[in-house]
């Protein structure tokens, strides 16, 4: 078909946005007119106003994409952001899913613009809407996820990121998305001080299948070491399912952090401080200094927590000695902070300068706790069923059966032949 003018395209759009077949037809038409649109990007702005985003979503999308990919238009249009936001809010989800790359590209230019103008906070809500519309199910990871989390990080709106992070992800289109998503997710959780979730996210990054090392994994491993120390006092070994690339190479790129972990294990405060001082610039250049400082304060906490296991009452002076603090006053401050954070259960008797440690008062008898246990059980049963069905599905897969069949000895008449011969 000959290259059509923009007006003709617009007319098509307006005409063919009714039913599904029409939209499909429109789609193929639009694909052919892509170059035409792109060459006339500057003029498209006016035409956009002729179209209604909620009805003519697909067409609008194509035009918008061509428009936004032109850098000149982007710069000059003051309303660029607004128009995209409007589009995202009002577009129809099914039509978008016909041309997901276009949609993603539009959102990316939106994100770039927002970052360029240094107002990341403006991009948060629109992008969240965009993600929800693009996703087929809430278990799917899109490229927009990582962009969204990036904006949350830049704007320091960590809680906004949580709503997306809470979704379980099971389907992934592009591995790079996953790396970035988990890495940013880890950073958001660190910002919110929920170290356990941060650990999970970072763990996913470093144990994801990879054949070559990438920078995201290296950075994630650095943070992983620090978070592991804060949580557990030590860095766990790589689990069996970590890729061999990761196992072999990650340690060589993160030596200062590994030294820090070893220093921490010995337990003396002075050594740890010394270790931090020697590697100060490295930590700073990786922007991990804040986390490193938290590692330092976690050393005190760990020492004090150990004391709760052996003593019923202990004087503040002894606590200060055991945890290598300088004065009983400092010990009191630390203990007070830990009580407030709910990390230990104790009472301070200021008259005697004694601290009494108590047991965890949780008795597991309240309704709330029973509900929690019950919902956990249901959730886990659903998860386990999912796993079971995946396993069943895979064991019926012809490719798998062929592989299994080939590796078995051929003339084994004694054994019950569980693999049908057609797969051999």
């Amino acid at each position, binding site marked *: 078909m000959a290259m059509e003018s923009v007006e003709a395209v617009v007319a098509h759009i307006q005409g063919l946005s009714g039913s599904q077949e029409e939209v499909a037809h429109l789609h193929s038409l639009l694909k052919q007119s892509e170059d035409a649109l792109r060459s006339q990007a500057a003029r498209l702005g006016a035409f956009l106003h002729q179209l209604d985003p909620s009805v003519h979503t697909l067409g609008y999308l194509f035009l918008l994409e061509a428009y936004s990919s032109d850098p000149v238009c982007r710069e000059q249009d003051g309303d660029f952001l607004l128009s995209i936001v409007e589009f995202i809010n009002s577009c129809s989800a099914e039509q978008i899913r016909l041309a997901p790359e276009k949609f993603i590209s539009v959102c990316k230019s939106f994100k770039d613009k927002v970052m360029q103008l240094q107002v990341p906070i403006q991009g948060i809500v629109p992008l969240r809407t965009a993600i929800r519309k693009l996703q087929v199910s809430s278990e799917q990871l899109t490229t927009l996820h990582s962009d969204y989390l990036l904006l949350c990080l830049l704007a320091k709106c960590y809680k906004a990121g949580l709503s997306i992070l809470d979704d379980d992800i099971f*389907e992934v289109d592009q591995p790079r998305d996953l790396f970035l998503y988990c890495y940013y997710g880890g950073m958001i959780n660190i910002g919110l001080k929920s170290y356990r979730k941060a650990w999970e996210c970072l763990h996913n990054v470093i*144990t994801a299948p*990879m*054949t070559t090392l990438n920078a995201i994994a290296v950075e994630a491993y650095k943070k992983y070491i620090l978070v592991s120390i804060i949580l557990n006092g030590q860095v766990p070994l790589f689990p069996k399912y970590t890729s061999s690339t990761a196992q072999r190479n990650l340690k060589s790129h993160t030596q200062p952090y590994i030294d820090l972990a070893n220093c921490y294990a010995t337990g003396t405060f002075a050594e740890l401080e010394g270790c931090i001082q020697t590697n100060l610039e490295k930590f700073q250049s990786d922007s991990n200094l804040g986390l490193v400082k938290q590692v330092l304060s976690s050393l005190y906490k760990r020492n004090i927590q150990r004391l709760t296991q052996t003593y019923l009452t*202990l004087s503040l002076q002894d606590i200060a000695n055991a945890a290598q603090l300088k004065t009983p006053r400092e010990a009191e401050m630390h203990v007070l902070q830990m009580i407030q954070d709910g990390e230990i259960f104790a009472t301070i008797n200021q008259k005697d300068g004694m601290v009494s440690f108590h*047991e965890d008062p949780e008795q597991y008898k309240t309704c709330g706790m029973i509900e929690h246990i019950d919902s956990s059980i249901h959730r*886990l049963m659903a998860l386990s069923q999912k*796993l079971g069905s*995946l396993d069943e599905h895979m064991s019926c897969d012809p490719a798998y059966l062929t592989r299994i069949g080939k590796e078995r000895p051929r003339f084994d008449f004694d054994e019950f032949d569980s693999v049908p011969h057609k797969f051999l």
Partner: protein
Amino acid sequence: MDGGDEGVVVAPIGDESMCSNGGAVDDPRRPPASSGKAAAGGGEQMDLEAYVALYTGRTRVSRLLFVAERCGNEGMQLEALRMAHDEIKKGEDSHLYREVIAKTGGRLGPLYALDQTWVDMVDRRAEARKEKLENELNSYKTNLIKESIRMGFNDLANFFYAHGQLGDAFKNYVRTRDYCTSSKHISQMCLNVILVSIELGQFMHVSNYVSKAEQTPEQLDPITHSKLRCAAGLAYLETKKYKLAARKFLDTGPELGNNYTDVIAQQDVATYGGLCALASFDRPELKNKVIDNINFRNFLELVPEVRELINDFYASRYASCLEYLENLKPNLLLDIHLHDHVETLYTNIRHKAIIQYTHPFISVDLHAMAGAFKTSVAGLEKELEVLITDDKIQARIDSHNKILYARHADQRNATFQRVLQTGVEYERDVRAMLMRTNLIKQESILRAAKKL
């Protein structure tokens, strides 16, 4: 201190034990004056002559040399070296002779200078004998008579052993294996190999050959059996498996007598067995296998201190038990097999004593306990802290009032906690696994060529 239920097994002694630990004023069993091998700390020395008289053969010299190296006391050192020198002169080992002379360094006077003529004579004799033996062996080999070949290798190995070439002796003893025809031969071969391996310090071979010897189809005579048990015990001791070592030593029958003095003396069996048992057995085992063991009693009679200290431990008289241990320590540090295990064993015994002390009570006054163990309250607190952290004692310290309270974990709460924890971990692992499966399934593995 508040008495909870005192453990039934302590019942015979009753309250008296708790009081008499502090002051042993009228305790009839004070550590006796030193006799023979055991010496009190400070001042009195080990009686070298009596010690060495217990052993025969090469081990005499090795032990004397070890004592000379470790004792730190010039007089004793010289004495040991002198006796070693005399022993060696009776034998044929010129290398060892040279070594001893070097160590003496002329301090023993002109009588003990290097006697080069003796050395040369011994070496010449050795050369001649070696040639003769090798020729004989070759002729036997051509004749292909199994028994003679075996005897030939045996003689050659004996020769090497006498001459101090332990490696060659070992090789030749092992070579006789192929020519052994009866189980007597096999057990003889095993015993020889074991002897050389112990001298060489290669205890893995010792264990191997002990099991080989015990696998023979015929019944071994009881003496050989006891020898093998001792050797096995020594092997376990070296590899720090104290419980197994104790069991082996305790099973050694009294038939051992003085038949194995080229490796171990009866006193040693008692000492090693007793200490390892104390350090590793629990109370019922200690009673059954040690205190009520009639066979072992014969050995214990030879070393009354060890017998006393085991009884004290069982009867909770910790202060005197620990005192006996301290008295034995200097001599044990000079023992060639036990020296590097003394510290570990002592620490274990001390810990066991503390754990046993606190076991029957709900609360214990730390002052009284410190008195019982003859230590300060602060030191005791530190020790208790270590034991609690290692989860050997379930208790908590009230540092303000200096009382130790027993603490029994609430099973129900602990179970709930564990269950919830398991659930959390399961969920996390399965989710991650599903995601990874998905990644691999779509063959979305990060490739280097792909432009990111």
